[in-house]
């Protein structure tokens, strides 16, 4: 990772998103800095996941600007307009942004080892040997060194999610987006995934995490971004947000989730 801690990694300026008549994001202004962990909280349907998916252009945006490392993702600016890029060009920029999904989305036809190897070979053009070494090292780091030849369906949800994190790390991303990484897990498996994420945060990875795990947010986050009804209502350090939120909506939300 290049760049100093504190540099701006993600910058959103007035981001707008509509699905037909549904106005999902209503002018989001947001900043995430290098080495910071941002937890995005909010009720379902508030636009959290959509915003996350706009950051790596899995969703297009209808207005505003979204910069990662000062560069647009999926768009090119010319004559005061944003032109959508071709998929191939977008792919290059996306490779620098990791993403971990709620449903893990491991490649079902590949073993755990191949899941972590293949993207390095296909996207990063690394040699098989190099990809293999990196994959084994990362899988050992997330505690799956003994599962290399297993297929995703043979693993628990927690093991699959840890593999997905290793797969993302293998691409040496500048930041990682987590889209409700523990929401599809059985309660007893949530801890092992959060442990891996905690280690990542401690290693200085820039992370943006959409989550319902208030405890994780309190302990690990540098800032909490609270979304409600398509707006980024409040951004604050966790202690401040969780104890004395400044908006009525945030107070209502916290009352529901903390009771």
């Amino acid at each position, binding site marked *: 990772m290049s760049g100093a801690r504190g540099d701006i990694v993600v910058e959103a300026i007035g981001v707008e998103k509509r699905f037909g008549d549904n106005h999902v994001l209503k002018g989001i202004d947001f900043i995430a800095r290098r080495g910071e962990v941002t937890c995005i909280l909010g009720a379902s349907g508030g636009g959290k996941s959509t915003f996350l998916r706009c950051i790596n252009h899995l969703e297009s945006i209808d207005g505003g600007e979204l910069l990662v490392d000062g560069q647009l993702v999926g768009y090119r600016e010319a004559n005061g307009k944003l032109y959508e890029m071709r*998929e191939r060009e977008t*792919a290059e920029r996306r490779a620098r942004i*990791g993403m971990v999904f709620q*449903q893990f989305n491991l*490649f*079902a*036809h590949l073993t755990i080892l191949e899941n972590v190897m293949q993207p390095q070979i296909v996207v990063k053009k690394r040699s098989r040997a190099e990809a293999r070494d990196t994959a084994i090292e990362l899988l050992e780091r997330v505690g799956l060194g003994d599962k290399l030849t297993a*297929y995703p369906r043979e693993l628990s949800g927690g093991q699959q999610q840890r593999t997905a994190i290793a797969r*993302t790390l293998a691409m040496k991303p500048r930041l990682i987006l987590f889209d409700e990484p523990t929401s599809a897990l059985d309660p007893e498996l949530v801890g092992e995934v959060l442990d891996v994420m905690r280690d990542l945060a401690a290693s200085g990875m820039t992370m943006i995490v959409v989550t319902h795990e208030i405890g994780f947010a309190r302990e690990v986050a540098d800032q909490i971004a609270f979304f409600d009804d398509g707006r980024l209502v409040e951004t604050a350090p966790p202690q401040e947000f969780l104890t004395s939120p400044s908006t009525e909506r945030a107070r209502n939300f916290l009352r529901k989730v903390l009771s």
Partner: protein
Amino acid sequence: MTVNRTGSVAVRRGTTMEVVPLKHYGRLAGAIVAIAAVLAMLWVFASSRNVDWGAVIAYLPNADILSGLLITLELTVLAMALGAVLGTVLAVMRLSTNPVLQTVSTTYVWFVRSIPQLVQILFWFNIALFIPMLSIGGWSVSTNVLVTPIVAATLGLGLNEAAYMSEIVRAGILAIDPGQREAASALGYRPGQIMGRIVLPQAMRVIIPPSSNEVIGMLKATSLVSVIGAADLLTRAQSISSSNFKVIELLFVASFWYIVATTLASIGQYYLEKRFSAGSRDLRRPAKLRTETEQ
């Protein structure tokens, strides 16, 4: 009426009782009838004085028959290759977001599926009546020189097959969870890589069983080309029987080789399914080897 169940259980407790399975008399009767029918059929064939079994055996390795078999296999491979490649292209077109490509693909499938295969083969065979000369740049050639019976048969069978294969491939692609594509794009795969590395390899296990059916169907559909004299297995058998009048014998000879070919195709299917079942629990054990000759 109420029964005191606890009471009766208490009485029985302590004694071990014999368990008598239900007797399936119907199944037994069915089996006997089926065996009798099969034996009767075999007897009719084996004892018939109208079938010269010696001739059947003698013609099995006949050079003309074997060269006909080779043509049949060649046609099957060529037509299936054309069908599979064009079918995949049509499927990708149909699933694209471009409405023009979608419509072209849909129309092709509708049009080709609406016309009997035999008509299509005859059309390609007679294409010269419609387009007598083909020319590219300064170079031109008579269509009749280019469109031999084999070419006409390959086009007629392959272009028709593409319509069916496109539906099979489309079903296979649609069976893949969209999350797989999403994960690949988030990792930086380009669209072609997503299709080639992630979607199609997984779609294969959905695509293979119906495609094998198509291969087996094609093996037999090639017999349609006897109408344009493409010298396939059936054409060869018929031309021999038209001179020696051993019609039934030569149909048996042809059938024997069709059975051998479809059996080999079924075995191929078994191993292909096994190869592409990696990572899927339900298909770790592919369907039992069967010699499928329906359609």
